[in-house]
């Protein structure tokens, strides 16, 4: 016997896995390289304008990192700097959009086995959107290349 399954219908052969979602504290949403990201607000020391870029370069302070470029998105338009605690690294991003509270976060699926496991703590499930949650513990130490660039300033 053959039963055709019409594409719009859903065939529930097994019960879907229950969502394993947790909530995190307030997160700051930002864009880099045309993609939206989030970082936990309590991991952020301050947010600086692009106008303060010269100040970041001249004074001893956080090493600026082009976040989009680090993720392989190409050189980003650096309009804002998200300084991560304890202030050693500033993520250069295009726009800081908003802060939102208690979003649901799910772990990165196990088949993602590359560097993204270090880049992200998980994925935020927002309304009509999935946003990577940046793993601040990884990014708070500036990458080697950025450190070398910073030492030349």
């Amino acid at each position, binding site marked *: 016997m053959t039963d055709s399954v019409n594409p719009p219908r859903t065939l529930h052969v097994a019960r879907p896995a229950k969502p394993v979602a947790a909530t995190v504290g307030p997160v700051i949403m930002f864009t880099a390289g045309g993609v939206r990201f989030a970082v936990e607000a309590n991991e952020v020391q301050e947010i600086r304008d692009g106008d303060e870029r010269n100040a970041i370069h001249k004074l001893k302070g956080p090493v600026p990192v082009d976040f989009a470029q680090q993720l392989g998105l190409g050189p980003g338009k650096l309009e804002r700097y998200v300084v991560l605690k304890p202030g050693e690294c500033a993520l250069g991003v295009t726009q800081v959009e908003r802060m939102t509270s208690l979003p649901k976060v799910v772990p990165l699926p196990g088949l993602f086995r*590359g560097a993204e496991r270090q880049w992200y703590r998980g994925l935020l499930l927002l309304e*009509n959107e999935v946003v990577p949650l940046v793993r601040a513990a990884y990014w708070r130490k500036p990458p080697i290349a950025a450190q070398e660039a910073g030492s030349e300033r």
Partner: protein
Amino acid sequence: MNDTARFVTFPLGAECYALDSIQVKELVMPSRVYSFPHTMPALEGVLVRNGAVIPVCDLRSSFGQGKERNVYVIALCNYQGRTETVAFPVSGDCKLVQGERSDAPEKVTFVAGLLRTGGRTLPLLDLDGIVAHCIQSGLAFAGEAKQ
């Protein structure tokens, strides 16, 4: 060993393949595949189903699938000893059939056995094997790109 059970059949490239229905969780038409920066070429993003995120594995590199994507098969696979859920696009016309499973007469890449149903024989997809191949290829590619 032969055993009778229900199977889901679907087109993949030029062939029609089957998976044991126990392995298949859902056939869906998602409104959107969400993408974000990552280093795995074989994974094109994630689907959101019932509050869970499911990686979408593009099997076209192995099967030469056309661009048309009507349905995503969400199924369980075993990768490095862990059960993972994965979605892969097929070009529709999925069926739920009864049939008899048997071992393949010879070892064929990404074929886990044969399904006899309705007077024809279909290959059973070795989803564990193809997913492992895609992931390992992606890791190797990412490693080369890093060097």
